[in-house]
């Protein structure tokens, strides 16, 4: 780990700086590399802690085993996760950015107080909401259904905050003024003009929420008892608990984990600049 003593390039030189950064990068990358290697080794190599050697590769076999385990339920989980995450994040991004835009462009009484309330919602732990949400879902018969997980993840107050900042930055007042001069209604202006300019912001909010939903574990655990509705996170959790008794699950958990990370890495690499704009917008302010 880097320590403040490493902040002395003059004494220790450039080399030391680069060593500290390099070691930190190794710390973050090696476990990920282990996952890749472990997922491509056969079970014997795995249990022999023999992951680091270059023998016993069987990635395709591992994949086949993964999708054969428990009648191929992993594929089902994967599709569920994609639907929860992509569908949920897309809808959530549109809803949040629209609200953030309204906060930015319209004036009304107690606006800042209301906005503060929205921001305060970021603070409230998921665990606080879980039991009441469960009881509400139980009361309406939604418990153990797709909707019980899908509806709560649409709520993203941080997305509203980002939406407001992006609206300030990307949608100049003059453009709206010009649209109004042309006689366009407020809503038409938003959907035809502003939303296009907010595009990158929507993508950013989408990405953040995609990760959040893909990560989500507590809510599905509370709401779902039917394995066929599980997202990957909860499925892997249940397999890992089986693995403590039946070790044949270990390779499936590892290969399944690697596969579950892939979509996020792809999204991250392809859409890197959107991540960064979200990070800076969120933190510098």
């Amino acid at each position, binding site marked *: 780990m880097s320590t403040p003593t490493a902040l002395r390039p003059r004494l220790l030189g450039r080399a030391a700086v680069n060593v500290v950064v390099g070691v930190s990068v190794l710390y973050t990358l090696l476990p990920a590399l282990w996952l890749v290697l472990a997922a491509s080794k056969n079970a014997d190599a795995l249990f022999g802690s023999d992951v680091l050697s270059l023998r016993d590769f069987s990635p395709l076999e591992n994949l086949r085993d993964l999708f054969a385990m428990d009648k191929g339920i992993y594929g089902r989980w994967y599709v569920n996760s994609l639907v929860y995450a992509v569908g949920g994040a897309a809808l959530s991004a549109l809803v949040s950015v629209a609200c953030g835009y309204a906060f930015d462009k319209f004036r009304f009484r107690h606006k800042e107080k209301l906005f503060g309330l929205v921001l305060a919602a970021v603070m409230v732990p998921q665990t606080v909401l879980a039991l009441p949400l469960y009881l509400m879902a*139980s009361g309406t018969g939604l*418990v153990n259904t797709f909707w019980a997980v899908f509806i709560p993840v649409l709520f993203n107050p941080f997305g509203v905050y980002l939406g407001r900042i992006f609206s300030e930055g990307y949608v100049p007042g003059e453009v709206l003024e010009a649209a109004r001069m042309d006689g366009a209604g407020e809503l038409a202006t938003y959907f035809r003009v502003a939303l296009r300019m907010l595009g990158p912001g929507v993508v950013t909010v989408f990405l953040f929420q995609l990760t959040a939903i893909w990560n989500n574990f507590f809510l599905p655990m509370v709401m779902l008892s039917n394995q066929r509705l599980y997202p990957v996170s909860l499925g892997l959790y249940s397999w890992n608990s089986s693995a403590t008794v039946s070790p044949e699950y270990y390779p499936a958990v590892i290969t399944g984990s690697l596969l579950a990370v892939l979509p996020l890495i792809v999204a991250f690499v392809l859409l890197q600049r959107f991540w960064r704009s979200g990070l800076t917008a969120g933190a510098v302010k």
Partner: protein
Amino acid sequence: MPGPPNRRSVLAAGLALPLAGALGACTSGGGRSTTSAGPVRITFWSALRGSQEVVDAFNRGQNRIQVVFQQIPSGGQGGYAKLSNAARAGNAPDVATIEYPQVPGFAIDGVARDITDLVSERLRNRLLPQALGLTTFAGRVFSVPLDIEPMVLHYRRDVFDQHGLAVPRTWDEFAELARTVRDRLDGPRICLFATVPSGGTHFAAFCWQAGAQWFDTGDGAWNVSLADAPTRRVAEYWQRLINDDLVISGPSEGRQNDSYIQQGRLLTRLSGAWDAGAQMKARPGQKGLWALAPLPQWDPARPALGTHGGSTFAVTKDSAHPEAAMEFIEWQVSSPDALRARLSSGTSSQYPAVPDLAEVGRAAFDRAYYAGQDIYTLFDQEAAKIRDGWIWGPRMTATLSVMQDGFARAAAGQGSLIEAVRAAQAGTMPDLAALGLATSEHTN
């Protein structure tokens, strides 16, 4: 549009009736009053093997009550959560299966109905009194026992014979034997001290036998004294065995424990009567190697015993047909046909809570695995020793779980067994207080 009914609508009407009945049974536990002349439908949930066979036999035997059975996961695997959830949503089954330690919890939560007035005098007289005592609180009955499982000693007859070891009759002899085993045999230990996930029920059986009274409902309050004198004695006893490396302490289920038994590293198992049948199924290769004996006693002159395992049937609050549900339960626990049907699904050595049915079990049980030993005679004799008056607590799953966490830590060298017991009490009282129960606590 009035007119002659077409073929499709007639068909639909014909289908609608039974379907509506089935739906009603599934979604509301038969929650509507059926006035039609057809059979009464009731639903039944259980994780017990052979339940389908029992239900089929019941449905074949009469035509007034139609039981719809659903296999659910066992309690700890989500079965209890499922039952609670269903009860909350108002669609619990008419008949649910609940193990003894969880009966008070479900009774307090209002899931298990008060069935005192539905239990016939005949059934009452046939049930082992200690068994019915476990499901009766303040004079009210909340469920009906199916089996009662005295804890017995399962031991490796072959190893005992080979090394000239005598079956211990007292706990002192057991400890001595444990020392002999450690010193004379290379590797094996006398037994496992179970931690998670079921060490709590093992330990409870030991304490029950020793005269402990963890919970008491005198004076209209839950008096809790987990660390009473008998319990402290039991805890000290096992702590010494652990400290002296005379027993293996670890998980009671899973691969490791399984391989210990498979490889002969554990010479005895201390568990309920049912475990004789479970062992036969799990390890057919060890045929002829095991025998059963009474559990060691603290005082052979005044023998006592606790139970380990066993299930009961409750009628739930959502049932619209409690009488029919009770009729099915009574048949299930007391009819020889019901027990025969259950045993037809595979080996079982459960000891019925209606002791006169033991004859059916004896006849059905293949004695070859235990080299011809008549285990049911042993069970008869041991069941009589079960100490009356034991009461399980209102939140037993949680109490035992805190205790087991402590056991696991103790096994890893952190803390002691008695500390685990005290922690379990400390972690239980707030639960009871939050429910509004009247409580008193004894930490002697």
